Structure formats: C-alpha cells, structure tokens
C-alpha cells in the first residue's frame, strides 16, 4: 500500500504506481461539512497551483471550496461523486476521491503531512 499524505486544508493525496496523484477530502472534512448534496470538480486538463480553489462541495447549508494540495495538471475526475455526492460522507478517504493530477514536481508531496502528523494537527485545532 502506498503512503497517503495530508494537507492542512484537509485533503489527502495518494501517489499511484503511474505517478499520478489521487486527491480527496479527509474524513474529518466530510464530517465537518455534513450531508453533501453537490460537488463540482475541475475540468481534466486544467492546470492548478497549490492552494488554488479548484473544486466545490455543497452541503444542505453551505458551500465550501476544495483546494489543490499541490501544483500540477488535472488528468481525471471521479464521476461517481458527481452522480452521488453522499458517497463523500461514507467513503471520503477511499472510493470518493475527487480528481487525479500529474504533479509538476513529484517530490513536492514530501512537504505534506503523514497520517500521524495530520492526526496531531487535527488534535491541535
């Protein structure tokens, strides 16, 4: 199993064998958002810069931006969460990934947090 990295914006990043980064929101983030009813994902081919707002999730009450955790080019999005946004509430860190991207600098991922560091970060909030 490959390592998963975490951002302070509550996204997770997993690097696949093909070198592509899969990005989703953390379980903590989905819990904080509540029942998710809509998601808008970036177009494949879009270049995003780290910390840039590139997706939107809407709960019954409010809209929230999702930020690109790293710089790169979006290669693929997860239609399953567009069709069934509630999947994000049940499988945020597994099947309910948001998009895949080719990283501009594959080593940049090392600047993100490990699971242990993210858990510690959550404890400090």
């Amino acid at each position, binding site marked *: 199993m490959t390592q998963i990295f975490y951002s302070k914006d509550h996204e997770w990043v997993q690097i696949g064998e093909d070198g592509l980064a899969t990005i989703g929101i953390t379980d903590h983030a989905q819990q904080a958002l*509540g029942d998710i*009813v*809509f998601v*808008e994902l970036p177009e494949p081919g879009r270049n995003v810069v780290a910390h840039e707002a590139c997706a*939107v999730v809407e709960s*019954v*009450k409010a809209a929230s931006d999702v930020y690109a955790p790293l710089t790169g080019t979006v290669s693929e999005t997860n239609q399953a969460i567009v069709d069934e946004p509630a999947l994000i509430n049940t499988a945020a860190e597994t099947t309910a990934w948001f998009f895949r991207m080719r990283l501009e600098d594959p080593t940049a991922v090392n600047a993100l947090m490990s699971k242990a560091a993210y858990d510690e970060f959550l404890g400090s909030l």
Partner: protein
Amino acid sequence: MLKTPLDALHRRLGARMVEFAGYEMPLQYTGIMAEHQACREGAALFDVSHMGQAHVANAKAFEALVPGDILGLRPGRQRYTLLLNEAGGIIDDLMVANFGAHLQLVLNAGRKHVDLAHIRAHGVAITPHFERALLALQGPKAAAMLPEGAALRFMDAAALHVAGIACVVTRSGYTGEDGFEIGCAAEDAQALAGLLLERGATPAGLGARDSLRLEAGLCLYGNDIDEGRNPVEANLAWAIARCRRSDWDFLGAAPVRAALEAGPAEKLVGIKVTGRAPARAGAEIRNARGERVGAVTSGCFAPSLNAPVALGYVRADCAAEGTALDLIVRDKPIPGVVAPLPFVPHRYAR
C-alpha cells in the same frame, strides 16, 4: 454568548453548536438530512428557546401596531402577524395568541429586543418572558407524541399540563408539518424535552429547521424580510386583515396601502433550480435577456425534493409562476423557474 435552558441536553446529545442571534444553538445532532426526514416522516424536537415570549394585556393598543385582526382573535386562538414601521417596513414577524387575560407574542430571537423597544415606544405595555423555554415538536407523529395537545386544531392555543409540567401550547410551527410549539418555565425544560424524546421524537437542529421552513415557503426574518421590505412585496399581503383594510389605521398603513394599490416593484417568489447546485442567499437573478432582475434571499438543497430551491426578490414583471430565470452561482448561470409556494405542501391539522 447566551445559552438556552436546554444547553446541557444539546451537549449530552452530541450537537454541533453554532452562534445564532447571540445564542449557542444546536446546528445538528446526527445530520441535517436525517433530522429533516424525521420531521417529514415522524416527529422532530427543536429547541427554539432563543425566541422571545412576551405578554401584552392591551389588545386594542397592540392592534394599532400590526395589520392583523387582533380584537377579532378569539380566546384560545393564535395568528401570524407583522410589526411594521412607519414606512410599512417589516420590523418583525410574529405569532400572537389570545389567552384571555393577555396576548402571548412569540418574537424572533434576533429581533425581540428591537420589538420590545418599538412596542414600548408606541405606549403599549409589554412584559418579556425571555427566560422561558420554547420547544417545537413537529411532524406527522407529533400529535401521537403529545396526546395532551391532540384536541387542539391548527392555530389553537391552550395552557395545559404535560406530565405535571405547566405548558403553554399552540398547534403551529415553522416546518409546514403538523405540530406544536410548547412554552414552559426554564427549570422544566430539560424534563419536558426528555419526556418528548422518550416518547420517540428525534432531536433536530437549526440546519433542519431552515431547510424545512424553506421547503414550506416560510420567510426567515433577516433573510427574506426586513425593515426595507413591506408585506406586499414580501408576499404577505394576506396578513393584512380584511377588517383593517377599511380604516387603514395601523402603523405603516398608508405606504402599505399605496404598495397594494400600485403593485410592488419587486416581489418575493419561490424558485425551483435545475441541477443539484444550490443558489445561496445573495446570488444574482437574471431574466432570459440576461438583465439583473433580483437576488436570492434564501437558498438550500431541499432534502424532501432532492433538488435545490430558493426564495428571492425579483422585478414584478418576472414574478409570474413559470417565468424562466437564471441564478448566478460561481459566475455561471443556472436555470430556474418561478414556482408556486410552498415547495412542499403544508400538512396542518386544520
């Protein structure tokens, strides 16, 4: 920040608390969808103790401040009315119940102190009981869970005892469902709420309360109505009683009458939105020609319709049912259509 008499219960139930009108209130317990559903299918219990209960003895003096028929309100009956300013703007919307010796008012949390000052400034004595608790038991199973109030019909009001607790009960609410609003002394609130939860009510927070009221087409003060809006543009002209339309002697009557005769420049309408992205308060509304014709004042994803809905003010020529409009969400137009209100039919025990 202020706390309601049920604060400890909310925390015990694991509520996520938020600030609302100066109070720490439960936004949700398990989730807005489940709580919304519980209210539409079973019964939900809301803490609305942040709202202000108050008594007024002089119905005639009070009637001069509202467009409703207060002198014609029989004992044991309640009605919805409005406090208006001299320009006809809405200071607050409220419930008034006749308890014989006094009228009971239920005021919005964020407006109750403004209301008190306004009412007193016009020489009407009012006694606040803001320390009292208020619970709302709402849903098709509400009457089964409050058999003590089952004899009441929609908008009836009575003082009665529930398990020995002295309560002031009205058959009304803010969800479009059958149900009750139950006032009691602060020290009795935990016992009363505990009893209703034992009887099977689902605790529900402000999140579900907002999605329920929006589906029911009910205005939220501060979003859909305020002092800059009069009852005619707010679609509340029905709250101007027939008997008050001969003398036009309530505060703000002249501008309201003029608006009624001339027709409002803008009207509050319901809008059904296509797709799944909700248009939130503040979203611009455009007509088919791309002109700005209004703005959304309330918008959410409607759980009972599985689709987004909105309330908003639009130019009067765009207010007819069926009018196609665009709502601008994140710089993109989302098609919508003016829809009849309520979005979800009311199911009151008339």
